[in-house]
């Protein structure tokens, strides 16, 4: 019987298999950041173990770093301690690190792909759930906990039980103004936040094939929001074209050998998935969340749901709680929700194409007086590219703040936070209670919707804005 993409990559990495035990899987790339690594390095020190393959390990500073005044010492002593610990640990264990100020610094899931380090058929792990992002290249990429980080540092392997596979097939053409972000929010609303549990999702179908690599990263990034461990998309010409010529991509005869191998990384026609979900791309429209988990989303044209319409008690209580926290009334049109803060950035939507989409909407327009808008590039390279294209002047002319690279208001570990009660439209991936600052309220949106919302002062799509001749 044929194999799925995920099974092929898995099989190619089994170091050891024994009855009744998890497979021991080899890890090709281990990405590290300052939040989930200090205790892992501590563990190595305590047991006197070295890092087995520093040359397959890469660290970057992202979660805690400030996005203004990066030349100054980090003001928050705890953030500074984490960043310092990462630098010291990397020096002690010989792990390469891209620190604040380095041209390669940025969000770990933006940095790996843009260097060409993430390639089809690889196993990629990081102590961060959005490692699923790298699946856009046809890599098997997933988040791990700190003790697994220690395990990979010490052994370059992980003992794992095989995942189940789920096909998420999206055929047809996305309507104009509908983006990868809308697509994945719709998928999550359909599957639910727990529906992908235990699965690797493989996104396929003509709508997926038509996406750029960056759009595919947005999709795979949020697989975790559907409960899945990983998301994957089979590599194709789009993937190869993206990788060609990148710093760490193969070159010369090795490039040809690599492409020959990468072309084999497709789900066989006679392979079967453990589950399948089907969506029609043509039926999709801009999608936003109204609640406190990423599955609580609806088309922007919809209204805040009524708990009384819920399928069961568990659902009804969840909706009631969400509405109370979000301070929303059932039946209110989503477009009427007023927004204080717009955040553009994160590993979901902090890449150059996202910034271009925002600039396209903001060009010739201004951010509403009542709105504070932050645009935070996912990496220093993204920042430089945006500046080269003059996007930064579009942002600042419209009244948005143009910042330095990092996770920023995606999780509010640095000074970029919502105040209690404040409401944001955010291009990030999580709308949990307090995610963007204690008491803050988050609506997840696409970059285009974020930009239109900033102009309108309430949730809006670009098509809602008066045209500018």
């Amino acid at each position, binding site marked *: 019987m044929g194999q799925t993409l995920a099974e092929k990559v898995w099989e190619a990495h089994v170091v050891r298999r024994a009855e009744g035990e998890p497979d021991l899987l*080899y890890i090709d790339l281990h990405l590290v950041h300052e939040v989930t690594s200090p205790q892992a390095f501590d563990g190595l020190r305590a047991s006197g173990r070295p890092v087995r393959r520093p040359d397959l390990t890469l660290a970057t500073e992202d979660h805690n770093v400030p996005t203004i005044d990066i030349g100054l010492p980090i003001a928050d002593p705890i953030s500074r301690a984490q960043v310092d610990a990462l630098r010291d640990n990397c020096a002690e264990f010989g792990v390469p690190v891209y620190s604040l100020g380095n041209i390669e610094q940025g969000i770990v899931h933006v940095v790996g792909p843009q260097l060409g380090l993430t390639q089809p058929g690889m196993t990629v792990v990081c102590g961060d759930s959005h490692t699923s992002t790298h699946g856009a290249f046809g890599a098997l990429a997933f988040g791990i906990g700190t003790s697994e980080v220690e395990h990979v540092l010490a052994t370059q392997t992980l003992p794992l039980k095989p995942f189940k596979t789920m096909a998420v097939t999206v055929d047809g053409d996305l309507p104009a103004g509908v983006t990868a972000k809308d697509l994945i929010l719709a998928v999550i609303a359909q599957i639910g936040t727990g529906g992908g549990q235990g699965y690797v999702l493989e996104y396929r179908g003509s709508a997926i094939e038509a996406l750029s690599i960056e759009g595919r990263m947005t999709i795979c990034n949020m697989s975790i929001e559907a409960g899945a461990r990983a998301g994957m998309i089979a590599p194709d010409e789009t993937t190869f074209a993206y990788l060609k010529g990148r710093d760490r991509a193969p070159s010369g005869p090795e490039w040809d050998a690599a492409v020959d191998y990468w072309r084999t990384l497709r789900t066989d026609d006679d392979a079967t998935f453990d589950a399948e979900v089907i969506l029609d791309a043509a039926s999709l429209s801009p999608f936003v969340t109204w609640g406190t988990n990423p599955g609580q989303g609806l088309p922007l044209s919809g209204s805040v749901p009524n708990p009384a319409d819920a399928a069961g008690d568990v659902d009804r209580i969840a909706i009631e709680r969400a509405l109370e926290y979000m301070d929303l009334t059932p039946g209110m049109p989503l477009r009427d929700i007023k927004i204080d803060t717009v955040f553009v950035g994160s590993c979901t939507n902090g890449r150059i194409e996202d910034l271009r989409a925002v600039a396209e909407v903001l060009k010739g327009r201004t951010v509403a007086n009542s709105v504070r808008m932050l645009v935070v590039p996912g990496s220093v390279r993204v920042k430089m590219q945006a500046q080269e294209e003059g996007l930064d002047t579009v942002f600042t002319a419209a009244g948005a703040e143009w910042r330095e690279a990092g996770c920023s208001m995606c999780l509010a570990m640095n000074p970029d936070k919502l105040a209690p009660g404040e409401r944001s439209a955010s291009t990030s991936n999580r709308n949990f209670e307090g995610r963007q600052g204690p008491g803050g309220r988050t609506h997840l949106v696409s970059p285009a919707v974020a930009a239109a919302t900033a102009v309108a002062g309430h949730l809006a799509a670009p098509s809602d804005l008066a045209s500018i001749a």
Partner: protein
Amino acid sequence: MDKFISHTGTAIPLRRSNVDTDQIIPAEYLKRITRHGFEDGLFSAWRKDQEFVLNLPQYQGATILISGPDFGTGSSREHAVWALQDYGFMVVLSSRFADIFRGNSGKGGLLTAQLDQDVIEALWEAVESDPTLAVTVDLDRREVRAGSIVAAFDVDDYVRWRLMEGLDDIGITLKHADAIAEFEAHRPAFMPVTA
């Protein structure tokens, strides 16, 4: 790691679903670089409410947490496991756990036992009517016992074995260092390196 065979203690009924790791321990606590002392962060937002179940006097000293479905969703932070353990929990019972959280728990020595939601409801009621009720989580027999309730729970075989033996994962893997070296000798030359 200590061996876990069976545990008896009192339990806290947490009548919530979708308890994500941001609620278990908010991101601000992740800034610490130590491995212990996270008990103050556990459910810190909810604990500001004096009526929140963890604050109720009758549940102090409990070692078993009984939650609704989808416990531990969201971020992969292992601090969620440490915070639960530092607070004193040995076991979490739920009708469904998020994968990463479950994996993290097994490695950290926190038992996550999965039961039908009916059983969870019955346990909630039993514990609410008698907070001093002794709840036994028997890993050897894969069974929860509390008053008249006896229910089998689901736990991964390998995790169970490791917990019962008190074994460290890395030590187990390093026994296979030769197999790892052998695998490395055959990796394709086009694979990238970071340095």
